[in-house]
């Protein structure tokens, strides 16, 4: 589920398995009009409040950038992946997965601020059972700055 609260998508980034469905409820009092023109999934949800629409199914891997056609400041990302194990890292970059067998892994890393906005970078990682590994990937652009504080609801676009 990607909710819309106080003119913000929540969460702003989610990693979802290929073929899964996502609902886009609108918890705001104002209407939103959600769209994506990303190659991995193009869709539009006509102007709505509440949750009038069926969940959207994501059948192609890739990064889907979400926007609202009424509020241009709203942005979020869905990473659709067919990887055996996937998830969103914590703020310190760590990520934990259980039931991972020992072996050689191809790891794909993606962040909205990487140079290539839609393709992950790849790293190789060899892990024994119950071991932690460390991978480095350089962001080629400054991290997106902290979100601006919530704008008053009455603000519009002039």
């Amino acid at each position, binding site marked *: 589920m990607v909710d819309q609260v106080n003119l913000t998508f929540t969460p702003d980034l989610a990693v979802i398995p290929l073929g899964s469905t996502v609902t886009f409820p609108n918890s705001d009092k104002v209407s939103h009009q959600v769209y994506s*023109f990303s190659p991995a999934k193009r869709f539009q949800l006509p102007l709505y409040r509440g949750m009038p629409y069926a969940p959207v199914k994501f059948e192609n891997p890739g990064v889907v950038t979400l926007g609202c056609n009424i509020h241009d400041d709203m942005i979020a990302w869905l990473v659709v992946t067919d990887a055996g194990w996937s998830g969103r890292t914590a703020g310190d970059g760590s990520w934990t997965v259980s039931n991972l067998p020992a072996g050689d892994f191809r790891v794909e890393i993606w962040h909205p601020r990487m140079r290539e906005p839609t393709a992950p970078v790849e790293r190789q990682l060899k892990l024994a059972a119950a071991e932690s590994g460390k991978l480095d990937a350089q962001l080629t652009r400054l991290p997106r700055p902290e979100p601006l504080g919530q704008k008053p609801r009455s603000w519009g676009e002039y």
Partner: protein
Amino acid sequence: MRVPTALSLALLAAPCLAEGQLELSVDLRLIAADGRSSYLDSGLGKLRFDEDHDGLQIGRLRAAWSRPFGERLNLHIDASLWRLEDHNALDFTEAYLEFRPYPSDGWRSRIRFGAFYAPISLEHRAAGWTNPYLISSSAINTWVGDELRTIGAEYSLDWLGTRSGHDFDLGLVAAVYLYNDPAGILVASRGWALHDRQTTLFGRVGESGDGFVANRVLFEEIDDRPGYYVGVNLRYLDRVDFRYMHYDNRADPARFDPGINDFAWLTSFDSIGVRAETAGGWTFIGQWLGGETIIEPDSGYEVWEFSSVFAMLSKAIGKHRISFRADWFDTDHVRTSWPPGLEETGNALTAGYSYERDQHWNFAVEAMQVESDFSGRSFIGEPTTADERILQLQLRYALSR
């Protein structure tokens, strides 16, 4: 515009209000001012409320209605009352239909048709073209609210780079409009001003009728020549918004309309502005606007060059906000057969605090000082220099459904 006045409330009272979104707000002020007699009351003071308007005053009563028609069309109507004695007291400030198709591969078009504000101001972000930082607008955008309105069609094309992994969005805007031929008369004959009043579509400026600025109609077509503007808008993430606009009403300065006792003022200007925001709650806005206005009475060309610049710094701390602004303004009557002409220089300092308690209640206080030297005051027997101060307390209640 001289159009039936009963229109003002007819649309708002229509039963179709049940659909769409209705916004109502009441803004009351407590005023302490020592300004010269206001330009709204036969004088040449810069303030909306002069020394005769101390005490409780109506700031603004506003009703607005937005209604989608299908997926891509939206109708917006905004009406306000600024003073009970005004001609057409409750009247429209904006009324337009917007066509907003979905973006396609990062590009998006928008078309507006009707009466609305050109995207010049970076201050006026709140509903009803309200300045959320300070009660009174900068000299530049006070003038925009006084004299300018796009009554025509506007096309904008945005490249939504931030939706395809880039850091920038780029926008282009162009409009063609009529009914803005009198634009220029206020900045020339009154000079600059700083306040929050907006001229309504069927309203007047200077109601009392015998002053220097008397009963002016701002939105009228005199020469049947459409004007235009073109602009560029560059946005870095959601942090920095840069705007440039060139505006030219293409009026024929030799044309005079006896019906409104006014010339077509040939007015053109350029405006450059930037707004930058930080996650820490800081906002900076800076804007420069400069241009000229021309009329051609029988006595020959009258040419004014006008310019103004301001810088504003604002800090939001939770529901509290503190803002400061400095304005400088200048008008040169570079060619005239009426010596000494209408020349002006001036500056203003504004400091304000606001508290947004919730979505309904807002409280603000503002102190402003305007120093100006306007040669036009000699024509009404006043000293040309004026040092005007105003303290305003504002209480606003807003309702939306």
